[in-house]
């Protein structure tokens, strides 16, 4: 889908058509030589510097827009309280459980709707109507139906995960190249073998893409799920920080979400590259 990363640059250098090959181009060429990790670190350092300058300038209310130093102190405070660790455990546990529930059901329903017309006709319109309903709108129902314990949180997280995984699985399993099916049949495979040995692996890249999206969504719906009925977790801690006007602690929560989510995604991509090794 994308051109080899180096090539565009070569064309540009060879073309010599850039009207002002000034600072951006030169900086770009210099940056190209750094590794991707180093580049990201540099960008984040630059951002923190900017952030420090803005808060130090006195233009903003630091209680509402804390400086990096204040956020760091708040993180240390949360760590000393032991809240950082326990929040992580609680949130990751919830996200993981909701993710497993949502993705298992999403894969099953997706395979059903993709490969059996009756299920497709019966379920696709309903699922299409469910998609625009956000998890947060379902929190009240979740509490009523599943109680204030972990059940409702699993439901809210699992719901968003389910929709993403179902959609991807459905498209993957419905769009399998006809030649795979033809090859399988003309090699004498039974319907059962066709399903397990051809349909499933052929849809696997899409399923894994759905799982990746689902993992991101499990994270995104965590805050909504922990709004009510939780007494630990990142979402809870964000709520608590809000109640006590601790914007610095709120920022810690947001940064936790950002870092964890990004790390999770990187880990997910690394693992899925191994599972779906033939796609790369």
């Amino acid at each position, binding site marked *: 889908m994308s051109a080899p990363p180096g090539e565009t640059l070569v064309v540009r250098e060879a073309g010599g058509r850039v009207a002002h090959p000034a600072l951006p181009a030169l900086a770009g060429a210099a940056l190209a030589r750094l590794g991707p990790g180093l580049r990201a670190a540099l960008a984040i350092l630059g951002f923190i510097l900017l952030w420090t300058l803005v808060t130090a300038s006195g233009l903003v209310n630091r209680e509402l827009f804390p400086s990096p130093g204040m956020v760091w102190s708040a993180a240390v405070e949360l760590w000393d309280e032991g809240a950082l660790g326990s929040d992580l455990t609680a949130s990751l546990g919830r996200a993981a459980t909701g993710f497993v529930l949502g993705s298992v059901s999403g894969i099953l329903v997706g395979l059903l709707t993709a490969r059996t017309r009756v299920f497709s006709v019966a379920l696709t319109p309903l699922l299409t109507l469910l998609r625009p309903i956000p998890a947060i709108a379902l929190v009240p129902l979740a509490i009523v139906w599943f109680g*204030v314990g972990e059940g409702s949180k699993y439901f809210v997280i699992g719901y968003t995960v389910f929709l993403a995984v179902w959609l991807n699985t459905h498209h993957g399993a419905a769009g399998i190249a006809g030649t795979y099916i033809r090859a399988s049949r003309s090699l004498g495979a039974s319907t059962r073998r066709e399903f397990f040995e051809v349909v499933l692996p052929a849809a696997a890249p899409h399923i894994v893409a759905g799982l990746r999206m689902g993992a991101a969504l499990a994270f995104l719906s965590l805050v909504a799920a922990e709004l009510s009925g939780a007494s630990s977790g990142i979402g809870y801690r964000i709520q608590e920080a809000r109640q006590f006007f601790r914007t610095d602690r709120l920022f810690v929560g947001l940064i936790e979400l950002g870092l964890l989510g990004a790390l999770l995604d990187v880990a997910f991509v690394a693992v899925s590259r191994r599972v779906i090794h033939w796609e790369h």
Partner: protein
Amino acid sequence: QKVVTVGWGSYSMDAPQVLVASEKGYFKEAGIAPKLIPFQSGREGFEALIGGQLDVTVMAEFPAVVGTLRKQPFAVLAVLSRFVANRLITTPASGATDLAGLSGKKIGLPVGTNVQFMVDEDLKRAGVKAQIVNLTPPDLPPALLRGDVDAIATFPGAFGGARRILGERYRELPVSAYATTFVVAASRDFLAKDPATTAKLVEALVRADEVMKSDPAGAQDIVAKAAGKALTLEGIRADWDKYRYGVVLDGGLIDLMVREGTWIRERGIVRDTEPSAALFRSAVADAPLKSVAPATVTLP
């Protein structure tokens, strides 16, 4: 007409002065056009006040305590009412008939609010240990109904809804004399820029307060009309006595703020400031109320 933005919630019963002053035209007479902006909670209105989005807001005292400890630029102008009928709500299924009966049981409430302060204080006084479950107000009655928790504590405005949902299973447990204290607060900016308007606003509330005392039935009609479907006239009449109305500034407010401040500090989340009476006194701007009704200001 000077436009004043006012943070507002489902406070029809908690702060009827605003509705009455509006209806009677006292604001208009004072050259003020209040613009009510609705919020789900006093907390959010307070956030908007701090962010410079509101001139004044109505809320319970608790966010003011936190805001003072966090040195936010605002001031309390006056107390509007005190809700003196706080209760824990339970069902027969819990088997509890008093606070002691909740020992080891689950109590659902919104954590980090005056409700938690109230329950904590009472449990401590009674020497009872119970498990607190954090729930947003709308989730409290269904959680109790489902039996996820054994009792709930909620904000004054939510008792009616809880009674409706629980039906004949609705039971109340008496609690201590904690009174939710509803205040009107202004941003420091607004106070500094327009002290005259602030005073006129307070004056309009004081006039409304007097009407409520002299003609409660008329005031109740006004509230019923303004509240629309959310409240019925009968409900308003039945609950009227659960409030002690009065635009005042008294020592009781400071006492309560100190108690809450100490409680918050014990929880360890806000610990940069000493919750002293002097600190909270400094968060109250008594000049406007003093200028229109000096007798109601009895601060130490």
